């Protein structure tokens, strides 16, 4: 990642820069390079194995949830219920009798099933009932939050240590969080080359043309929601593996983070332009900014302000860059 981020400064990469700008990923990568540089400056052992895998374990949920939002945004919709959905999935996981549902695998399977159900509800409301996604998913978000509070009025419950141990461990020498991200991104890469993935992009970039071309709009949008919510399930499992308990407010901040990451990643909120890779870059930028603020020893009263300024600066940068591109 850092190698790619350093590209604009090397001579041979000048030819790649216009291509990056066309993809909309250029500014995001530049920002990633800057925050990575700051991280390295503040934290000399940034590239040590322990530090890297710790960072990846922390960032993985954000990345997965941001990529989920990206898939929905690409289809020209939005989902403001992702954060509450993460909380609900987490509370369901923590309230299950861990041993009676088939151990860790059973718990995770139930988490994915719950996510698919939530995604189906959102997808049906938006695609089939024709409700505006912004308000409809805001409404379902309130419902998910209410359900999470019903299951677990206070933080509590237990998630089996086995899930936590597996998440912190490695598989074939690769840290499990990295593997989850790799699987998710590979899954999208395959889907994007498959007819269904191309349809999601087509519906997002020009719905009228897509319909004229015989693409089933409603089914395609529903599919986008289902794909996204499987990613949300993975994200919720990854957070739960770190907290090992339930919290009805656990996911709240992810909704807005996911929208910000999508914008930083150069994905047009108007749909159809950008790739989920952009959301990955955006999520990394957000995570590394938090790191920088933490490691720079900035007084806590300044943290919110600095974070807000960084996001505004990122937005301004994105917009100016985008207008130059147009």
């Amino acid at each position, binding site marked *: 990642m850092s190698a790619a981020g350093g590209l604009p400064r090397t001579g041979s990469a000048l030819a790649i820069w216009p291509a990056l700008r066309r993809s909309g990923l250029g500014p995001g990568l530049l920002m990633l390079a800057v925050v990575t540089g700051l991280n390295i400056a503040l934290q000399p052992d940034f590239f040590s194995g322990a530090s890297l895998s710790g960072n990846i374990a922390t960032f993985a949920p954000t990345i997965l949830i941001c990529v989920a939002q990206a898939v929905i945004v690409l289809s*020209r*919709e*939005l989902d403001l219920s992702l954060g509450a959905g993460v909380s609900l999935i987490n509370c369901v996981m923590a309230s299950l009798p861990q041993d009676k549902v088939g151990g860790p695998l059973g718990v995770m399977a139930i988490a994915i099933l719950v996510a698919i159900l939530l995604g189906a509800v959102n997808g049906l*409301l*938006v*695609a*089939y*009932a*024709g*409700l*505006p*996604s*912004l*308000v*409809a998913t*805001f*409404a*379902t*978000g*309130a*419902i998910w*939050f*209410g*359900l*999470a*509070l*019903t299951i677990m*009025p206070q933080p509590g419950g237990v998630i089996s240590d086995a899930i936590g141990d597996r998440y912190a461990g490695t598989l074939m020498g690769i840290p499990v969080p990295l593997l989850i991200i790799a699987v998710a991104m590979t899954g999208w890469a395959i889907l994007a080359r498959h007819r269904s993935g191309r349809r999601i992009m087509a519906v997002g970039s020009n*719905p*009228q043309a897509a*319909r004229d071309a015989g693409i089933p*709009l*409603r089914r395609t*949008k529903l599919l986008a929601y289902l794909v996204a919510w499987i990613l949300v399930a993975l994200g919720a499992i990854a957070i739960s593996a770190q907290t090992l308990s339930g919290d009805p407010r656990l996911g709240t901040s992810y909704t*807005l983070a996911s*929208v*910000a990451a999508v*914008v930083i990643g150069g994905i047009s*909120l*108007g*749909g159809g332009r950008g790739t989920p890779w952009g959301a990955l870059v955006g999520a990394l930028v957000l995570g590394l900014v938090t790191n920088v603020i933490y490691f720079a020893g900035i007084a806590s*009263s*300044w*943290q*919110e*302000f*600095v*974070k*807000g*300024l960084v*996001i*505004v600066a990122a*937005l*301004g940068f994105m*917009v*100016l860059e985008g*207008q130059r591109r*147009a």
Partner: protein
Amino acid sequence: MTRQLTRPLALVGVAILLLLVGQALLPGFLSLGQIGNQLKIAAFLGLFGLCQTIVIAAGGQGLDLSVGASATLGGILGAALMQGSNGLTAPALLAAVAAGGLVGVINGIGIALMRIPPLVATLAIASVVDGGTILGVSIAHPANSASPVLVAIGGWASAGVPNIVIVWAILGALAIWLLSASAWGKRLTATGANPVASLLSGNHVTAIRIAAYGLSGALAAFAGFLLTGYVGQAFFGLGDPYILTSVVVAVIGGATLAGGRAPYAGVAAAAIMMTVLVSLLTALAIGEAGRQIIFGLVLLGFLALDRMMKGSLRMAMIGRRPNPAPPIAAASSAADTPRGG
């Protein structure tokens, strides 16, 4: 005119029905004091709903999620400047409203000039304003209590009518005139309905949108200032409960995110209806969880109702089955503004 009044009347009807249900289940729910209290709470919700009504009408997926931050800023800055003194209340009010207006203008510049989607722009600005407010408080440790005059305006009643409700009634009447009868209101809704046509017919679309967000920020800070009087003191997070509820009442009141409509009578009625609903649920000892779920279901119900009515209206107009495709335009952001190049 009759169609414009249908929704407000229906919403007030639902509110009365809820009050009667409350009285049947819990005797005393329908007392005059109770109704006054509920109108007080509705007044604040209604003021924040006005912010959303204006920016939603401006179109381009208009939305102002910084109303909470502006209100908190207005309350904290106002309390800091008035230092509990009656004499300093008016200048403090002016400063608070100006600060909120400035936040709104910055929002408007980001949205109308830089073409950042409103949802993203106002959220980002909100995080800066919130961060700046925390920072300011931690450095200056300002006074945070409301002056006696402000407490009287925010919390007391004159001749049985809460003062804040009088303020809301006056502002609401002004808003209805401004939005539906004044020349500026016509330009605002024309801009929201069709920015290109509005531009071609000589309206300064960018200036109108910036003014809409400026007005929203100023109103939010004003509401936050009054809220300080109602609660007695300003604190961080003062305006946060209104961020999303203001959007909800605007949508229930008949504002459509596609823009071009500014039905404030409906939004005001929706604020009353939602307040009664929440207080009924609270009185019935339905906790936060149940309230959230019912909240979401009510909002979904109103969205579906709107959708059905739009469908049947179109059917009546065209005389055939409505087009089965979903309204994709409703989801696109800023697609209605011509992009450079």
